[in-house]
């Protein structure tokens, strides 16, 4: 599980994330929603450690990782699917997935990954950079899943993915949550996808949380209103 | 006290000179010995009372293997430091770059390297041999001793090897009645001689005549050996290997090949024994002395002789004294040298056969040869 307290992030002088506090227990999926430029990506980057946080604590299963390098955070169980894919373009698809297996010590790519993204199996030997946009996005998700994370961060994971696969991804995330002890945090713009996976929804605005709802209580119109201020 | 010339760095008890060699860059390899020898000579002169009662002070500059830097530093030594003489330069290119400065500022340069000739400046004393003094006797010697008729010429691609080869070819064809079966130049610093060696095999020359310089030399000899070409099968005569180069090449790779120089460290005469001893005392037991090093050592002594004859440090007077043809050094390690009015030295040519320990055995010594920087019939 993930505990974050008083997290602040700055780009140079300007503070973009203003002291966030939140806790996500095991087996919960938290969706973070917000308009463009409100700090979702920034928040994720600081959780995985590619952006330094200027203040605050990040605990994974009680272990403070806020001073650690990102590879150590991954070792402690975070996995990250960045916005904009960021796959390794000149590695083959298979090698791309294998980079995620350095941590989990898996020997072979699990079959269920290829079952979820059949296209990746077909294109195993192709260079990652030659895939189409949506294929790359699928690859990035696969790469994160093979690390066997305790906390999975997904920054707009459905961007550029075809509707049928979005549905599959939603099913898989729900499945994983049932099978493993996992915490999922996802930032999303597509409300339908969010509603399909999230247990709880938080709206972020200008680097602060302004609204929080459990899925059961979500009033879609209200959320929509928050998102279009 | 004798008159001092105005404008020079001369006080009542000191006189300042410059040393200008490459301490850095590719040429430092060759020039280190020269500047060591010059410092030794100056130290010895100072210990024996200096010149005209003055101790010599040295300002050293680094030419950095870069010709324009030689020009810049020459100007600095002459204009800023007003030195009475400069001992320096090694490559012809650096001399050519510095020469106009010496002529403009009326300085005096003692240049130690064997070189291509075709030059005679009022402001330079050439203490090394010009091409004819080095080349002709060597060729005569192999023609006679080894019965050589066919020659393969190989050198680095720049002016000194090319000019030397030009003279060699004329001599081989016109005087010795021999034949040049190949002539080859490799870029400076090149380390691949495989193809050339194959060509040489194909031509089967009686003599390989070589003027490869610097680091290339090492590759050249190691690869010759590796190709199975050694002194048992093949005569090789080079004009560009001295004890300095042997250090890098390794005596085992040169064994039995010949160099033609005017000086070898192994020369057995009292002058040289004393010189070698003093040099090693100053610069360490491991140090070796090559032809240019010895020629550089002559510089300060020749200057001392000329200054004392002129009674002044004034450049014009010193040059004039030098041009009278009667300045000689009986104490020269190479034996005996005399300064010719054309600013070059009378010297002997010697053929040395290299031994495994990196020393050469002198197998031939010529008569004293008159320097002739503009040789008739060889241009």
């Amino acid at each position, binding site marked *: 599980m993930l505990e974050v307290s008083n997290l602040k992030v700055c780009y140079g002088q300007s503070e973009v994330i203003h002291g966030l506090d939140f806790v996500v227990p095991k087996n919960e999926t938290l969706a973070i929603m917000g308009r463009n430029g409100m700090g979702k990506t920034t928040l994720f980057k600081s959780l995985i450690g590619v952006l330094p946080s200027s203040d605050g604590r990040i605990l994974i299963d009680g272990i403070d990782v806020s001073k650690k390098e990102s590879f150590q955070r991954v070792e402690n169980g975070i996995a990250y699917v960045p916005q904009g894919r960021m796959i390794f373009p000149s590695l083959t698809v298979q090698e791309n997935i294998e980079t995620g297996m350095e941590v989990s010590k898996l020997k072979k790519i699990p079959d269920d990954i290829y079952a979820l993204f059949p296209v990746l199996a077909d294109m195993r030997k192709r260079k990652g950079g030659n895939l189409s946009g949506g294929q790359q996005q699928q690859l990035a998700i696969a790469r994160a899943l093979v690390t066997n994370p305790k906390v999975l961060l997904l920054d707009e994971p459905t961007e550029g993915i075809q509707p049928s696969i979005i549905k599959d991804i939603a099913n898989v995330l729900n499945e994983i949550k049932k099978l493993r002890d996992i915490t999922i945090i996802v930032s999303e713009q597509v409300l339908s996808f969010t509603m399909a996976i999230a247990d709880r929804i938080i709206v972020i605005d200008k680097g602060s949380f302004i609204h929080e709802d459990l899925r059961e209580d979500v009033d879609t119109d209200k959320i929509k209103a928050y998102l279009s201020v | 006290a004798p008159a001092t010339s105005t404008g020079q760095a001369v006080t009542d008890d000191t006189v300042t000179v410059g040393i200008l060699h490459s301490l850095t860059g590719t040429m430092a390899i060759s020039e280190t010995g020269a500047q060591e020898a010059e410092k030794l000579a100056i130290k010895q002169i100072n210990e024996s009372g200096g010149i005209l009662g003055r101790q010599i002070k040295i300002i050293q500059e680094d030419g950095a293997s870069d010709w324009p830097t030689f020009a810049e530093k020459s100007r600095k030594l002459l204009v800023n430091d007003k030195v009475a003489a400069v001992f320096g330069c090694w490559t012809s290119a650096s001399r050519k770059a510095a020469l*106009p400065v010496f002529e403009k500022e009326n300085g005096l340069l003692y240049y130690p390297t064997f070189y291509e000739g075709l030059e005679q400046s009022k402001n330079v004393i050439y203490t090394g041999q010009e091409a004819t003094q080095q080349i002709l006797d060597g060729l005569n010697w192999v023609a006679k001793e080894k019965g050589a008729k066919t020659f393969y010429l190989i050198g680095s691609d720049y002016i000194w090897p090319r000019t030397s080869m030009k003279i060699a070819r004329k001599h081989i064809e016109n005087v010795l009645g021999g034949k040049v079966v190949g002539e080859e130049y490799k870029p400076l610093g090149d380390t691949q001689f495989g193809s050339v060696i194959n060509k040489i095999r194909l031509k089967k020359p009686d003599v390989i005549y070589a003027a490869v310089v610097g680091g290339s030399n090492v590759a050249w000899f190691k690869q010759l050996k590796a190709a199975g070409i050694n002194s048992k099968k093949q005569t090789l005569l080079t004009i560009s290997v001295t004890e300095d180069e042997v250090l890098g090449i390794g005596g085992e790779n040169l064994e039995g090949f010949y160099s033609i120089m005017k000086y070898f460290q192994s020369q057995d005469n009292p002058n040289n024994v004393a010189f070698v001893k003093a040099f090693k005392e100053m610069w360490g037991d491991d140090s070796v002395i090559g032809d240019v090093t010895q020629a550089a050592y002559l510089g300060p002594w020749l200057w001392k002789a000329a200054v004392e004859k002129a009674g002044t440090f004034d450049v014009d007077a010193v040059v004039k004294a030098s041009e009278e043809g009667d300045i000689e050094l009986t104490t020269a390690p190479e034996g005996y040298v005399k300064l010719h009015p054309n600013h070059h030295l009378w010297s002997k040519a010697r053929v040395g056969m290299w031994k495994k320990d990196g020393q050469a055995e002198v197998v031939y010594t010529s008569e004293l040869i008159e320097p002739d920087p503009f040789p008739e019939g060889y241009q």
Partner: protein
Amino acid sequence: MSFVYEKLFGDKKGLIGFCILAALILVVFPVMLDSFRLNLVGKYLTYAFAAVSLVLLWGYGGTLSLGQGIFFGIGGYAMAMFLKLEASSPENTAIQSTPGIPDFMDWNQITELPLFWMPFHSFSFTLFAVLVVPTIFAYIIGAAMFKRRVGGVYFAIITQVVSVILTVLIVGQQGLTGGINGITDLRTLNGWDITSDSAKTLFYFINCFLLLAVIIASRFILTSKFGRILLAMRDKEDRVRFSGYDVANFKIFIFCFAAMISAIGGAMFTLQVGFMSPSFVGIVPSIEMVIFAAIGGRMSLIGAVYGTLLINFGKTAFSESFPELWLFLMGGLFIAVVMFFPNGLAGLWEDYGHHLTKRLDFIKNLFSKSKSAADAIELKGSKS
């Protein structure tokens, strides 16, 4: 007025910087230095042409050339050929087997002046050649490479290879070029002794004016839309293409322009130093020119001049004081600048100059308070 001013000097800080540089090289140096040192500075300033050209080509254009020495050399050689012919009058060369041709040709058994040397009897042709030959040469290389979209490190290595080719050719064809010795012993220009102190001083000032003119011309390019396109190309070349620009043409132009200014530097070098040699065409000087630009701050035209001066002063001073160890100091200097001042000297000036302009702004604001609405979206001057 303000248009022209912006075009030529950039923002206010640019103008101040320019004036300080002009004052330094035109007044301070000539007053403070003796003729030997002034001539040295003059020599350094000829390298500054190449450094400035690299600011355009590399700093803004994003195209690193490791062969600016090629053009510096061609310019220098063109000038040297003219001066050498003048120095090789039949009277001066009477002792040669063929009087009237350069001495090195005579040593190489050449008996007739080669055809391509002939036009260099004319001074006006020589000036023309200094400017045009390198430009054409750059055009050929540039068109061949940029049209084929050779870029980045590939281009850098190719320029390096070309400079090796040229060096090998010059050294190998010594009968035509003077070989490794270069073309030496140049003494007069149309009968006027260029080795005299007065000639050197005059050349120094000509050199300074040319350098300042080149900086202004470069400023003009950089502040125009062309300059922004250069930056855009460095950032995302493909996008520029898809905005309708023929990217290759822009690169060719800036490469040619850079070649031309480097060549001016080369020609001024020959005039001030009195010889030209293949060691300027080679790789080491070419890399050093890049270092001058980098030390100055690769985005700053004026910084390039200071970078050149600093490194060369350093070289001279270190090597005079520590002839045996000065390379440690030079190496350390490069590393220190890269590590601690990633934006070079210009980075320092950014910080310091900031205070200076603020003060000026304050004074100016006392007099005029109005700020038009149009000002609000007026383009910010580029970063030099």
